[in-house]
Every structure is written in structure tokens, then in C-alpha cells.
């Protein structure tokens, strides 16, 4: 049996063994190496963006700007979730992020959840007003980046939505699309295309790629029809009667024997195959989707055309909006004026606007650039149509989307309401808007109550008013 003294000796021997020394030396050495490592501090402006294509557009302009001003520009591209986590992490902990950040619409909601002075982006309202940019940029484009009347970013785009349709199929059937003004016209005029020629008891194709669980397209149609999720004061309006009417209407498109919609995954290869095969005739197409179609489905060249969305009633709105991004200046930057100069260069430049359109099909929100002849050039992909002009024609009519910290939650609750209404309607054998309307009202009222419950928990809301 060992004595206490021997046990202590053994412990100290172990502590002073060569192994212990190697570990200790490694720890000390690596610690010193990490401390001695220079902090990466690149000169100039750090810009974080989420789209590789945007980086390609900005590079030549930034190089030119660097040559003129002597300020370097370091552009870093992140995926949207990665960028959102970095920005949120920086804003919530008060640590430095970048000098300029380009944000996608769904990222910004939580940033506006606290007192207005706690928003991580610099308030650009005075700068924008002083330079008259409110009048130079399409007005609805500002709304997603505003909170409590203050503007926190310069808009990058408009993103109007038009109806893309398979002109080859439609024209082969001798159908005249100019007869279509409303969604009722749309289904009436195109209905012959839903014939069952292969005898399997189902239509060979459907008229519109839309389904009740498609969150973004639900919002597109809701906004087009005059619905909304929040008013300009930030009050949740999900349960409004207009929303219920639109929801009942669009759900009826997916129900019963007369349904004319189908679900096509707009991002997968399988979905692209269905689009190429003409499984659906019409698609809700924001301008950015044109660029994606041209890159990912070049086989469709010459078989697609665009037209304004059919309205919900004669004389109604013929467009909507989907997506959007902005560039803002985090409060932690020590060069806000230089950063502002770069935003102006990137977002108001004619060269960038041209690149934006030619590479991605996206029209600029700067109205004074809309007279550029490039927007009138015929597109071979879209059967010779002047695609840019078609989108610009509807750009001023894009519905506003008031920002709210709860916008994303409201989108999800809208989707829930649509799905549950759809299921209840199917279970009850309902298929007309009139039958579905009470169910839609009930589901949307629940959705609104859910958002209001969430908002009621926020102790910061109302403090600035």
C-alpha cells in the first residue's frame, strides 16, 4: 500500500513528465502564435453582399471608384442565411460588421424589432431627402426598408411581377391572349388547353403554376388584389376582409374538378423539366426570374412571352411584387460618408443598372434611368418582346410592402391559413370562392391573432411613438 507521501510524489512526477511538458509547451507556443498573429485589417471599405452576380456587377464600378478616390473596396459574398446570422450577431452584440451591407428583404425584419435608435443600420432619411432621392427612386421600393418613418437602406430594385406564359402552346392553339384582362378571363380563354388527350382522366397540362402552400406566390397574389399583411402604421391586417376574399378566390383555383392550377417546384431540376414540357402554361414572373429562366432553361428560348398579370376585377392592378434588396450602412462603420458615396456609385450608376438588366433581367429602381434604350431591346428568349419596357410599364403600380419585424412571421401564418383553409374546403367538398370565404375568414383571423399575440409581447413597440 502506498503512503500519502508517495502518492503526492507520483502525482508531481506525472505533472512534470515529458508528456506534460510537451502539452504545456504546445499550449504556450500556440497561444503566443495566435496572439502574435496580425489582425486582418484591410484598408478601405468592407462590403458584404449575398448574391454572387451582384459582386460581378459591382467589381468594375468599384475598381473605377477606387482609381478615382484611392479607397479600396473589399466585396465579400455570403449565402443569405450566413449573411443574416453575421449581421444579426453583429447588431445584437454591438460588434463591428462591415462598412456596407446588402440585405435581402427577409433578413431585415428582426432588425426593426427594438427601439428605432437600436436599429443596427444608420438612418439614411436625411441623406436621401437632402439629395432628392425620394423623387428619383420608384416610391414603393422604399417601403420594405422603412421603420417608423425612417429609411435604413437604399433600394436596389423594384421587382414587378408579370405573367410569363408558353406562347408556343397558346399560339399553336389559336388563342388570343389580348382577350385576357382578369383572372376569370384567364381561365375561360385558356381552358381548352387543359384537354386530356392521353386519356388518363386528368388534364395534360394546367393553366397556372401556383399552389396554396407557395408562400411567396400567395403574397404576390394577395398584394396584387389589394390585400396586405401590415398597414403603414405597422398594424397587422392579415385578418382583413379583402385578404379573406383574395384567399378564397385563389384557393378556388386549386380545388374541385375545375381547378386550373398545379404545383411546380421553381428551383428543382424536376420542376424545370415540367416547365420545359409545358405542364403549366402561366407563371408568376418577377423580373429577376427572367434572368434565372434564361440561364437555367435556355431550351425555352422563343417559346415564352410576358404580359401584365390578369387583374382580380376589371380595371384592377395588373402587377405585384416579389423579393427585393437594399444596401445599408451599419452604425459601427467609421467611414459613413465614404460608404454613402460608394452606395450612390453602385446603386445610381447607369453602368450598374445596365449590367443589372443585361445579366439578370432586373430593372433599376432609379426612374431617370428608365429611358435607357436597352430596356427597349427585343429579347430572343421572350419571343422578341421588349422585356425591360414591359416591367417598367408596371413598375409604378407595384404595391407597397410596409416593413414590420413580424413580416416573416405574417408570411408564414398566411401560408398556414391558406393550407388549413384548403384542407377544410376539400374535406367539405367546397370549390367556389363563396363557399370557401367563411373558412378563409376564420383561418386569417386566427393568423392575425397569432401575430398580435407575438407583437403584444414586444415591450419596445410603441416606445418611439
Amino acid at each position, binding site marked *: 500500500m502506498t503512503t*500519502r507521501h508517495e*502518492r*503526492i510524489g507520483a*502525482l*508531481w512526477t506525472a*505533472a512534470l513528465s515529458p508528456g506534460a511538458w510537451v502539452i504545456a509547451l504546445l499550449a504556450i507556443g500556440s497561444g503566443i502564435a495566435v496572439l502574435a498573429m496580425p489582425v486582418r485589417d484591410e484598408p478601405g471599405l468592407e462590403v458584404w453582399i449575398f448574391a454572387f452576380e451582384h459582386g460581378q456587377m459591382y467589381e468594375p464600378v468599384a475598381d473605377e471608384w477606387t482609381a478615382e478616390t484611392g479607397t479600396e473596396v473589399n466585396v465579400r459574398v455570403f449565402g443569405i*442565411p450566413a449573411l*443574416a*446570422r453575421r449581421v*444579426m450577431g453583429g*447588431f*445584437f*452584440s*454591438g460588434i463591428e460588421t462591415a462598412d456596407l451591407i446588402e440585405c435581402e428583404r427577409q433578413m431585415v*425584419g*428582426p*432588425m426593426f*424589432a*427594438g*427601439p428605432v435608435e*437600436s436599429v*443596427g443600420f444608420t438612418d439614411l432619411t436625411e441623406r436621401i431627402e437632402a439629395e432628392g432621392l425620394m423623387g428619383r427612386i420608384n416610391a414603393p421600393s422604399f417601403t420594405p426598408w422603412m421603420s417608423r418613418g425612417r429609411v435604413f437602406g437604399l433600394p436596389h430594385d423594384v421587382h414587378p411581377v408579370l405573367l410569363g406564359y408558353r406562347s408556343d402552346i397558346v399560339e399553336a392553339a389559336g388563342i388570343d391572349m389580348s382577350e385576357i384582362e382578369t383572372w376569370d378571363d384567364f381561365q375561360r380563354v385558356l381552358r381548352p388547353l387543359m384537354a386530356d388527350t392521353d386519356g388518363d382522366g*386528368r388534364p395534360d397540362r394546367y393553366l397556372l403554376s401556383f399552389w396554396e*402552400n407557395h*408562400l411567396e406566390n400567395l403574397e404576390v397574389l394577395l398584394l396584387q388584389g389589394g390585400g396586405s399583411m401590415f398597414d403603414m402604421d405597422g398594424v397587422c391586417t392579415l385578418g382583413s376582409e379583402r385578404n379573406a376574399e383574395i384567399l378564397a378566390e385563389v384557393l378556388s383555383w386549386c380545388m374541385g374538378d375545375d381547378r386550373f392550377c398545379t*404545383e411546380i*417546384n421553381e428551383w*428543382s*431540376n*424536376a*420542376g424545370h*423539366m*415540367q416547365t420545359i414540357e409545358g405542364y403549366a402554361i402561366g407563371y408568376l414572373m418577377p423580373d429577376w426570374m427572367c434572368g434565372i429562366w434564361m440561364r437555367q432553361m435556355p431550351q425555352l428560348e422563343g417559346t415564352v412571352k410576358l404580359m401584365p398579370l390578369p387583374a382580380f376585377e376589371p380595371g384592377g392592378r395588373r402587377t405585384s411584387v416579389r423579393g427585393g434588396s437594399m444596401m445599408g450602412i451599419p452604425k459601427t462603420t467609421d467611414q459613413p460618408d465614404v460608404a454613402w458615396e460608394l452606395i450612390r456609385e453602385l446603386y445610381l450608376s447607369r453602368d450598374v443598372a445596365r449590367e443589372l438588366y443585361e445579366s439578370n433581367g432586373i430593372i433599376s429602381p432609379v426612374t431617370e434611368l428608365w429611358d435607357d434604350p436597352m430596356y427597349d431591346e427585343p429579347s430572343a428568349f421572350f419571343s422578341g418582346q421588349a422585356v425591360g419596357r414591359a416591367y417598367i410599364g408596371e413598375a409604378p403600380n407595384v404595391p407597397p410592402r410596409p416593413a414590420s*419585424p*413580424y413580416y*416573416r*412571421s405574417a408570411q*408564414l401564418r398566411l*401560408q*398556414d391559413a391558406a*393550407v*388549413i383553409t*384548403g*384542407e377544410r374546403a*376539400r*374535406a367539405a367538398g367546397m370549390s367556389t370562392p363563396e363557399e370557401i370565404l367563411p373558412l378563409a375568414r376564420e383561418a386569417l383571423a386566427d393568423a392575425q391573432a*397569432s401575430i398580435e*399575440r*407575438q407583437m403584444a*409581447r*414586444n*415591450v*419596445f413597440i410603441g416606445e418611439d411613438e
Partner: protein
Amino acid sequence: MARAPTNANKAAYLFLAPFLVVFAVFTLYPLVLSGVLAVQQTHGPDHARFVGLDNFIGLATDPLFHKALGNTIIYTLGSLLIQLPLALGLAMLLNQPSLRGRWFYRLIFFSPQLMGLVFVAMLAALVFEKRAGLLNQALQWALDGWLDPETAFPWMAVLDGVTWLDFPWLQSFVMPALILVSLWMYIGYNMVYFLAALQSIDKSLVEACAVDGAGPVTRFFAVTVPSIRPVASFVVLLSLIGSLQLFELPYILLDQTAGPQNRGLTIVMYLYQSGFEAGDLGYASAIGWVLALMLVALALGQVFIMRREER
């Protein structure tokens, strides 16, 4: 009067110091802070309000939290009641000396574990896709003409007029889809534990039982089950903890959402959504504490049951 530390204690503390420092900085300190956050509402580093137990009260009345809890329990039950018995069955099958190529089958069943969960989720999203997905294509090929979804599930109105090609796995059958994927992913993993336990059973006990005239079922309940009980308890606890922490699989499978009607919402996903998508760190901390308490309760329950059985 406090006793002065002995040299032996000093040496022990010296050895423990690296772990204790790391534990204090990276576990204990964040844990205390999350406890503080759970009774606050914050926005950024400079705006915090003490809200007492409001976050916990909010959770108690939050239908989304209830939904997340319900989904997590369904998934957990699916894991325990379907996955573990199948894993045990598979282990017993692959423990048969007469089965040729056992090593190959063991490798095959274990191999999904070699893939990352994120990759599995992305793969599963393709498998469950409507029309082009492998599973729906297979169902259509196998069942078209003699059984349609409407007939198979007459109580599901959502399937009215739907073909197998359009079977809405990721729209209406999210939890079954998740259980299927995790079955594929984890059955081999759990099988390995059971296999190890089965191989450690004293063969003389089984033989003695057989000599006494016991059939396979009696032998299973009289010898096999008691022998593998410690390992089975461990596997049950692991599955419980893993199931309650479910997040990546549904999050990626459902394209970074909880799916229609929050059918794929789990407790950890709700925590993530609240903290990192809605920016409500206090509420997220409260969810984290509730989950932690549930896990502690389950672990204590497990220990209690084990001790009682040992007695």
C-alpha cells in the same frame, strides 16, 4: 476553521484547471447569461427590459410552442416505438451465425451514419419530391392501377384526386417523412449497440433455457431481454435526447421553414426561429431552459428506473 489544501489536492486542482477554466468560460458563463436572458427582452447590446416570467408564461400559452412540443413528441415516439424494435430485430437477424455475408449487411445498414445529416436531408428532399421524387415514382410504379392514395387513406381529404406521383409527403405527411428518414439514418446505428449487447449474452444461459424446453419467444423474454437491458436503456436514453433535439433534418428538408401548418416544427427549430430569425433572444432562452429541464427530467427518470430494476 477551513483546512489548508494539501499537496495532493493542489496537484488534482492543477490537472483539473484546464477543464474547469474552459467549462466556466464556455459553458457555465453562457448558461448563467441565458438564465438572465430568459427573464428579459432585449434588442441589441444596449436595450434590455426585465420581464420576469413573461417569456415562460408566453410559452405556456403559445400555440406554436405547443405544436413544436407535439411534433417533437410524435417524432420521439416514432423513434422509440418503431426505430428501436426494428433495430433490435435487425441486430438479432444479423447475429445469426448461419447468415452468410453478415459483415456486409452490417456495413450496409450502418453506412447511412457515414453521411452527414445535412446531406441526408438534402437527399431526402429530392426523394420525397412530388412527381419526380424517387419514392413517389416507386409508389406510382408499384401501386398505380389497383390502389390510389384516396382509397388507401379515405379519411384524408387532402388526397382527393391525388395520384401517387403527387403524394404530398413534405406538405401533409411531414412527420411520417421525418420518421422514415431517421429510420433509414439511425436504424443501423442503434443496431450496432444491440448487436454488441447480443454478442455478450452468455450462450450457456440460452442453451440451458432451450434444454428446459423454452421456445424462441420465451428465450427472448427470459434471457435476451434481461441481458441486453442495460444497453437497451442506454439506447433509449440516447434516442430520447437525440429526438428531443431534432433540428437540422426538418429544417433542411423543409427548405429552412417548419413546413406548411408548422408540421415540421420542433422545439429546437422554434428556439432557432425565435432567437435567430425573429431576434427574440429572451424567448429563445426560455425555450432552451424548458427543453433542458425536460432532458434533465428524462435522464433522472431513466436513472430512477434503472436503480429500481437493479434493486
